[in-house]
């Protein structure tokens, strides 16, 4: 190879590498920005943590078609959820917690893995009393308990705790994090216009694993 063609070859390699890395950098940045899971969208039972999920989920929709209750959606272009990934909205239709977990069984990768201890070990999110002022049972509008009655882990995930405020006695729906699967039945059943109890993503709802607050700009 003479000097001229070697120079040409090296130049071509450099331009390939250059354009390739620019494209890769743009794609990686766009990916990080395009990936999202809003707090109202829940993953099916047995889903990996969100970071691993976006690497493992092939966007095939087998879970969506396996769901006997048509609860799951595949995110479409323009939705706020990462394109092509499965989710459900508890307020619209909560997970029915099938004992055989067909959605997780259908998954071709381990993006969804049926928990060995069964569906009650699933952690799709965590229910939280987000509207203690609007909750009928707490504010005394009615003796409601719709969330308590809807909860499939009866008397374990949600209990009605007796409270008193002055002479008034009321029952507060109380979520026990250790037993809540995040199926969303409580949020679906809540009778107030905006649900007073909501299933939040684990990362948002739990604080047992939270370290010190990240410094701003860090």
């Amino acid at each position, binding site marked *: 190879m003479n000097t001229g063609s070697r120079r040409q070859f090296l130049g071509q390699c450099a331009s390939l590498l250059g354009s390739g890395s620019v*494209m*890769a950098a743009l794609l*990686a940045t766009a990916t990080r920005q395009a990936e999202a899971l809003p707090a109202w969208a829940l993953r099916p039972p047995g889903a990996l943590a969100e970071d691993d999920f976006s690497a493992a989920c092939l966007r095939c929709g087998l879970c969506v078609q396996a769901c006997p209750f048509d609860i799951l959606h595949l995110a479409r272009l323009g939705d706020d959820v990462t394109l092509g990934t499965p989710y459900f909205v508890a307020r619209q239709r909560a997970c029915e917690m099938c004992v055989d977990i067909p959605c997780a069984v259908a998954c071709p990768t381990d993006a969804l893995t049926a928990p060995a201890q069964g569906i009650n070990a699933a952690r799709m999110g965590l229910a939280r009393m987000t509207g203690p002022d609007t909750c009928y049972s707490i504010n005394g509008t009615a003796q409601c308990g719709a969330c308590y009655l809807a909860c499939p882990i009866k008397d374990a995930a949600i209990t009605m705790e007796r409270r008193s405020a002055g002479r008034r006695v009321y029952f507060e729906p109380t979520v026990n994090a250790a037993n809540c699967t995040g199926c969303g039945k409580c949020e679906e059943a809540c009778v107030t216009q905006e649900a007073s109890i909501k299933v939040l993503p684990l990362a948002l709802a739990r604080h047992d694993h939270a370290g010190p607050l990240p410094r701003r700009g860090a």
Partner: protein
Amino acid sequence: MARRHWLARHRWLLLRRFSQLGLLAAFLAGPWFGVWMLRGNLASSVVLDTIALTDPLVLLQALVAGHGAQIAALSGAALVLLAYALLGGRSYCAWVCPLNLVTDLAAGLRRAMGLGRGWQMRRRTRWVLLGAILVASWVSGSIVWELLNPITVLQRGIVFGMGAGWVLIVAVFAFDLLVSAHGWCGHVCPVGAFYGLVGKVSVLRVNAARRAQCTDCGDCFRICPEPQVIAPALKPADPNGSPVILSGDCLNCGRCIDACDEDVFAFGSRRVVRIAAEGAKV
């Protein structure tokens, strides 16, 4: 030579459309009518509730993104690779890909309007993009191309709901129609580039075994979406050169077979092809 019957001139085209639309119908029969021939979509599917298939490029991105896949997904991808190693790598593009219906429509309109080939990017663009999506998947820890891939946006959209996906499909159509002939499939799409790699070794290939009958009419070059693949087989520098179209870019679409009134082209194996003497039957 008398013009052949319309059916004879569109035989492979009709078979391709039958295959492309038939696959879509098979994916839709489940959700629409409860007849589950194919579950899932082109990224990963289950045939007749028994055979699991997975798109090898999607799985490759998942693997470099740092996720070990289960054996089921690996064997499903191996099956797909094996099928295309037999049937021709980019036969995916011509016989399976639903976006091909869109880009073929654009190409047909371009031909009808006499728009020529338009802006032609470097052919290596798609190779650079293929490398870039793998690097980006590794860096971002995600399956990068599935955030943009118009093939799966179209196919997933038809089966599961389109959303704003039409915008992307219309954009690809407009790009192919107004900017660059075969621009998307031939120059951008990294999925096609990936299957082109498989095509470099695949068994089923088009050959020009009866090239002695060629009258230089140019019909095949005009209809072929990747015309650069034809010349080495049809007009080799060495008159005894192989008549087989060996380039991985070839889609095995059979359009050259349909277009040629002299019956120069035929499907055959990569290896066993005799060159027919002028006027001889093969």
